[in-house]
């Protein structure tokens, strides 16, 4: 048998393993935890950044993009998004005498001829075809007594598709026409038809004329542009294009965003506050007070919401076409708080019965302490979610009211009123509807997704599921 007698050298001090002493998770407050969970939700964090970006754009955008939203520029009406709008400088138009044929050289109409008139030949454009004027001349047709000029703004679809009748010459000698009728920078199809006074020629000549945007020298000077004839200048950038009055849509979207977001944020803040106070009182006192107060909200739910919004506006004496942001807000606040009130009441009723609240009561806690230490912190999570979901509702309501002409009125614009303007011209110039509608949709989408994320993040039960 061997015996072992331990000596002091046999013992070695082991290195301390600190990890063994820190097995629990780091201590985190409720809000830290919620914030961490929110940040881990990609949809919610992207939405949060998007909302911050939207606020930045509407608040600081107008400082960077210094275009007056109400400034009308009739030279660039309904212009699609573009950073450069080229325009030709032309000399100020002088009276054009036109082209007249020598009466002696004309072949007069033969009353016995049964033959139909020939087509007008060789239509020519005199000078440049610009938005200032298009000057047309043509060769005389034998037997013609007068000429008719038509203009089409799209590719002729059928043989008889001539477009707008513009002009009829007074005599056979007149062989020219100057078109100055609302010319836009696009292609036009001009048709000149000879007529003997009774019948029109059965064959016609149509010519495609591309029209160029042009400013006269004096117009260019007014704008402070380089006024050399023949020069091509740029009429300023419109990244989102312009509307039917030539107003810059980017500037208007940013200005309209201030109105839409202001209503969308302030009204929910007010009615959530109102609902919290109402629901808090109702839940805290309970009993008869609670029963009566909740009956009132039952009635409020039954009110046809949008009809009453409109009714309120009229009651305030604000007719259609007048701006009424304040009545709109008051109506929104008065009609929308009931949802929050129910939520808070339910929460307070439930919390009142919780063991820790009862314990605090037994220990002699004052009502104020109970409200601020237990009730409010435990209600604020669901309230925040409620607020986030109320914002899209308020933005939609504003957009709807402005859309039917009962919201903000010109010169103030909101996304809703801009959409209303844009919808009228959506076939030809969809960008006028696209941008305001896009901004409404993105804002509402972001708040909806953030609300979803917040609901999950603030639910402390989620922590144990991770």
């Amino acid at each position, binding site marked *: 048998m061997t015996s072992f007698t331990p000596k002091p050298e046999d013992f070695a001090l082991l290195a301390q393993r600190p990890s063994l002493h820190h097995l629990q998770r780091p201590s985190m407050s409720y809000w830290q935890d919620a914030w961490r969970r929110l940040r881990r939700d990609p949809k919610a964090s992207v939405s949060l950044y998007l909302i911050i970006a939207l606020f930045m754009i509407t608040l600081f955008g107008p400082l960077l993009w210094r275009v007056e939203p109400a400034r009308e520029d009739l030279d660039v009406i309904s212009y699609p998004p573009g950073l450069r709008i080229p325009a030709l400088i032309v000399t100020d138009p002088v009276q054009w005498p036109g082209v007249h044929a020598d009466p002696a050289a004309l072949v007069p109409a033969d009353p016995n001829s049964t033959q139909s008139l020939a087509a007008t030949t060789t239509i020519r454009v005199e000078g440049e075809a610009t938005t200032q004027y298009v000057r047309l001349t043509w060769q005389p047709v034998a037997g013609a007594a007068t000429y008719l000029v038509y203009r089409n703004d799209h590719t002729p679809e059928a043989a008889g598709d001539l477009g707008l009748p513009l002009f009829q010459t007074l005599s056979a000698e007149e062989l020219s026409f100057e078109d100055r009728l609302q010319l836009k920078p696009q292609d036009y199809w001009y048709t000149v038809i000879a007529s003997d006074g009774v019948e029109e020629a059965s064959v016609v000549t149509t010519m495609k004329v591309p029209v160029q945007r042009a400013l006269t020298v004096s117009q260019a000077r007014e704008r402070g542009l380089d006024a050399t004839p023949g020069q091509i200048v740029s009429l300023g950038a419109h990244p989102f294009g312009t509307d039917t009055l030539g107003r810059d849509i980017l500037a208007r979207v940013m200005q309209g965003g201030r109105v839409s977001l202001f209503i969308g944020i302030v009204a929910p803040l007010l009615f959530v506050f109102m609902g919290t106070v109402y629901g808090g009182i109702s839940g805290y006192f309970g009993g008869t007070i609670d029963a009566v107060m909740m009956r009132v909200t039952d009635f409020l739910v039954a009110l046809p919401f949008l009809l009453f919004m409109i009714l309120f506006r009229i009651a305030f004496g604000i007719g259609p076409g007048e701006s009424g942001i304040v009545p709109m807000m008051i109506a929104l606040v008065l009609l929308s708080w009931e949802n929050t009130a129910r939520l808070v009441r339910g929460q307070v009723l439930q919390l009142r019965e919780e063991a820790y609240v009862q314990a605090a009561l037994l220990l002699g806690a004052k009502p104020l302490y109970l409200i601020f230490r237990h009730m409010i912190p435990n209600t604020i999570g669901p309230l925040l979610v409620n607020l986030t979901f109320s914002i899209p509702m308020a933005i939609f309501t504003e957009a709807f009211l402005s859309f039917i002409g009962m919201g903000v009125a010109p010169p103030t614009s909101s996304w*809703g009123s801009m959409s209303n303007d844009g919808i009228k011209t959506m076939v030809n110039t969809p960008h006028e509807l696209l941008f305001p509608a896009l901004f409404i949709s993105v804002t509402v989408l972001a708040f909806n997704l953030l609300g979803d994320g917040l609901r999950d993040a603030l639910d402390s039960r989620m922590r144990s599921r991770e």
Partner: protein
Amino acid sequence: MLSYIVKRFGMGVLTIWFIATATFVAMHLVPGNPLAQEKAVNPVIRANLEKQYGLDKPVTTQYIIYITNMLHGDFGISYTQENRFVKDIISEHFPVSAELGLLSLFFATLGGVLFGAITALSRNRWPDHLIMVFVILGVSVPNFVFAALGQLLILKLNGWTGTTILPIAGWDGFGSMLMPSLVLGLSTMAYLTRLMRATMLEVAGTDYIRTARAKGLSTTRIFLSHQLRNAIMPVITVLGPAIAIITTGGFVVESVFTIPGLGRYFVQAVQQLDYTVIMGTTVFFGAFLVLMVIVADILYGFVDPRIRVEAGR
């Protein structure tokens, strides 16, 4: 069950009275007068007009007359079209709105239940993700944008094919009803899809589904007679409020598609400040909505025995 129905209807009548009173108060207890115009009116004419509309009487008398008339279904005469009764306007235009609303509700329910079931069955796979993207778009895009897009789609379709597949506007035949009711039902469909998905997933985790599976029932059988039947219940409760969303959404859709419904007429009345029409339509719509919610509640009571027990107590 009978006492429940009676109680529910009693509350409903009270609510309608509240709506009528609120409408009256909103229109009378604030500064301004429906006959106030920019032009100065001869006092005699003014007095006659006030007499015709009963505005010379004290407010309480006006209120009693107003409620009494309303009980007889009389909402007064239009301010802008003096030969038309508001009740005639309502009875002429409301059927169109009702048709539009019912059809869109049908589309919304059908689509909501169908898509909701699909998303729940294919949870976290691509059909689920795809439909949920559409759902979130459906609740985030304002309905006038959908209306405009729908109209544009018809226009392009007609342009490509060269014939009129669907009419762009108006109210004549099923073809003209199709697009407006689809557009109108879209946001409700999105909401119902979401609801259906949530309840389907909830039901899927219950004990009776596990029992059914343990018994060896086929997946189709479980889905049809257990999961779907139970998941569809909450959908019925929201149908009442959904009608409210659809009728108010109808204002926009009817305006865009120029459908001669009550919603479009209401928007016109608002723009012309036709007070009696506005008041009459508000009370009428309010009463209609209250009724619909009650009907949905009672229907739910019939479908779900648990509610009956609760109400009988």
